[in-house]
């Protein structure tokens, strides 16, 4: 008889591996992004099983939320994958929706099957937000501050790189003038 821990590990692991393989199989970037979101959500479940409840929340909010929204935004901004066939979307409709239903039913069945196990109150797991915060702001204070500088630099770098190459004030006219002079 397998324990609920192992059963949930297997379910989330199968979802994660299926998402990763689907990422390889899909030819359209949007489908790949959606399967990557499935991988990240399944990994959040794995983190929860390992007692890292804060990381599970951060995984969903930052990774599956913010970073993947950035990806999907760029894919749609660049109109990517329009030249590639989108057979995968039909496959996603045929297999995806029953697959999600089946997975949800499986998780619900496992949880109900082992319903005699008691629920863990929030904050009782080893990776509770309070303990992570204690560690982050005491032992890892310097790396934390350095990452904040890194994020600041990344924001500025992204703005500089993604902005249109605007002609500098007074620069192009002078350049044009010199070019005309050279041409003359």
């Amino acid at each position, binding site marked *: 008889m397998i324990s609920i821990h192992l059963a949930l590990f297997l379910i989330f692991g199968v979802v994660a591996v299926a998402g*990763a393989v689907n990422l390889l199989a899909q030819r359209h*970037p949007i489908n790949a992004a959606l399967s990557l979101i499935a991988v990240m959500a399944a990994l959040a479940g794995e983190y929860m099983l390992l007692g890292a409840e804060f990381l599970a929340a951060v995984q969903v909010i930052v990774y599956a939320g913010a970073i993947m929204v950035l990806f999907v935004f760029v894919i749609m901004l660049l109109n990517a994958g329009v030249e*590639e066939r989108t057979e995968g979307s039909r496959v996603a409709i045929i297999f995806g929706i029953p697959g999600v239903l089946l997975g949800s039913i499986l998780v619900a069945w496992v949880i109900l099957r082992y319903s005699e196990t008691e629920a863990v109150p929030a904050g009782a797991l080893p990776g509770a937000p309070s303990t992570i915060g204690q560690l982050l702001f005491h032992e890892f204070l310097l790396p934390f501050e350095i990452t904040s500088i890194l994020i600041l630099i*990344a924001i500025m770098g992204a703005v500089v790189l993604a902005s249109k190459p605007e002609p500098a004030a007074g620069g192009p006219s002078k350049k044009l003038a010199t070019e005309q002079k050279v041409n003359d």
Partner: protein
Amino acid sequence: MVPLSYYLVLSGILFACGVAGFLIKRNIITIFMSIELMLNGVNLSFVAFAAHWHALAGQVFVFFVMVVAAAESAVGLAIIIAVYRTRETLNVDHVNLLKL
């Protein structure tokens, strides 16, 4: 209790999928997503070791990996936009000059 090796195997599979995607994909955005997949695989092994050795520092490292991944994806996607603006393509085979 699930043995540590199961988590490491899962982490290895995810990392291998990321490496394979990095090598076989031709769309630059999908290649970028494969890198994220590799980072996720490594994060899982970090959390598994943290739970196994009761060392919460591993979870803090995962937090830092996520922060760096966020910064990396912001800069990387900005570079992709800049490349697309000049090359009009997302296929890495057609992007063979570092110069914009």
